[in-house]
C-alpha cells in the first residue's frame, strides 16, 4: 500500500526533528515549520518516514495511506 507523509499543522510546534530524520522529504521554512513533499514514499524513504513520525514530540508528522482526498467547502 502506498504511503506518504503529511503534517498536522495544528499539532506541529516546529521542533524540526522531521527535517533531520527525513531530509529527502522535509525542509524547514524560515520559522522552523516543515515544508513536506507529499508524494508517495519509496524504498528506504518509507523507513526514514516511520522513524521521523515516531520521533516527532507532538506526533504531528503523519504517515498516511494514500487515498483521494474528498473536497468539501
Amino acid at each position: 500500500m502506498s504511503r506518504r507523509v503529511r503534517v498536522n499543522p495544528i499539532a506541529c510546534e516546529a521542533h524540526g526533528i522531521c527535517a533531520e530524520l527525513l531530509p529527502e522529504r522535509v525542509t524547514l521554512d524560515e520559522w522552523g515549520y516543515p515544508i513536506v513533499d507529499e508524494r508517495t514514499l519509496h524504498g528506504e524513504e518509507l523507513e526514514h518516514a516511520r522513524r521521523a513520525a515516531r520521533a516527532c514530540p507532538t506526533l504531528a508528522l503523519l504517515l498516511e495511506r494514500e487515498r483521494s482526498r474528498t473536497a468539501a467547502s
Partner: protein
Amino acid sequence: MSSSAPTAELHAAAPDDTVAGLPRLLAGVHGERALTLSEHVSVHGELPTVAGGGRSRSRARSRRLIEEVEASGLRGCGGGGFPAGTKLRSVAAARGRPVVVVNAVEAEPPSSKDRTLLELAPHLVLDGAVLAAEALGADEAVVAIGEHAGGSAASAYAAIEERSHGGEHGRVALTLASVAGGYVAGQESALISGLEGREALPTFTPPLPFERGLRRRPTLVNNAETLAHLALIARHGAGWFRRLGTEAHPGSTLLTLSGPVAYPGVYEIEAGASLTSLIDAAGGTTAGVRGVLTGGYAGSWAPAAAIDELMLSREQLAGAGASFGAGIVVLLSAETCPVAETSRLARWLAGESARQCGPCVHGLDAISGAVEAVAAGAREQPSAQRLRTLSSLAAGRGACAHPDGAVRVIASALRAFAPEFEDHSRGGPCERCRAASELPLPHRAGRRATGRP
C-alpha cells in the same frame, strides 16, 4: 420587488427590471418583518413530503430529492461553492444516523445575506433543513447563528416555535444554537467544534464533517441560503431552478452590496447579471469608485476600470480573476486610500488567524508587516519576490483555508492597486491614508491574545 426605503437593508430587485421569476428566495417579503408560516405557505406552497408513507416509498423520494438537487447544479452559497448534491450524497453514504447543520454564522464582515434571509424568510431556510434531514434519514437539524445575528436570532427562534406548535414538523427536531467566534468560526469544522461547546476553531481533517461531525455523526453542513434554494428545488424541480442563471451557476443568488451606492443592502439577482445592473438596482453610485472587492475577505480586488466587465456568477468572476465567494460586493470609494485599506485588512486578517498553525500565524503576520512597510514608504521595504515567497509559505499550509484566502485577497489588492502601491512605496502615506476605514473590520471583544510561539 424592491423596497424603496433608503434605510431598508433588503432589496429584491431584478437588476434590469426584465428578469421574470425574481425574486425567488425573497418572494412575498415586504419591509422588515418575517413571513409567518401561513404567509410562507401561501407564497411557496406546502412543504413537499420526503419521508413517511412506508420505508421503500420514502427511500425512493429521498433518492429523487438528492437527484433533483444534483441535476439543479446548486452549489454551496457560503463561499466554498461545493456542489450541494454531491455533499448530500456523501452524507447519505456515510455510516450512522446523520444530522443537519444550517450554517448561518456568516462571519464575513461585509456579508449580511444569510442574516437577512433568516430574518425575513426563516421558514424557507427551515424547509430546506427539514427536507435535507428527511432525505438523509436525519431526525435533527441545528440552525447555527453567530454572535452578531441581530434580528435573525429572534426570527429563527419564533419560526421554529411556530412550526412546533403547528405540529407540522414533528418529523425533524429543529433547534437554534449560537456560536461565538471570529472570522474562522463559520468554517465547517470550527462550527462543529463551537456547537459541541468547545472554541469554534478549525480542526485537522480528515475526518471531514460528512464522515464524522457533530457528536461524531455524519453531518451535512449547509449554508442557510443553500438550504433555502433546496427548499424551492424540492417544490419546483431542477428544470425550474435552471430557468435563471448560467449553465455553471444556475438560479438566483443573494448578494450583499456595500459602498458608495444609494441603497446598499442585500439583493436577490439572477446569477450572471452584470455588476453594473446591480449597481443600477441599488440606485447608482453616490461617489467616485476606486475599486471593487468581490467574494469577501477571502476574495479578490479589481480596479474600478473592471466594474463594467464583471458578471456576477461563479465562473464568470473566476474567469476574470475575481471571486464570487459568499456573494459579497464591496465598492471602495475614491475618498479612501486603497493602500491603507489593504494594509489594515492584512493586519486584521493576521489577527483573525485562529493561531493554531505556525505558517498561518507567522506568514500572515510577516505579509501584513510587509504591506505596512510599503504603505508607509519605509526605508526598508520587501521586494516583490519577498512578498511572493511569504505568500507561498502561508498559503495551503494551515488546517483551514484562512491563510489561502488572506494571501489571495492581499495579492489581488497589490495587482489591482499597483500604481497606488508604487506611489506609497516611493512617497509614503497619502492624504487619504488617514480617512476612516471603509472596510468593516470589527474588533472582537475577548479576543485571545495568547498564541503560538
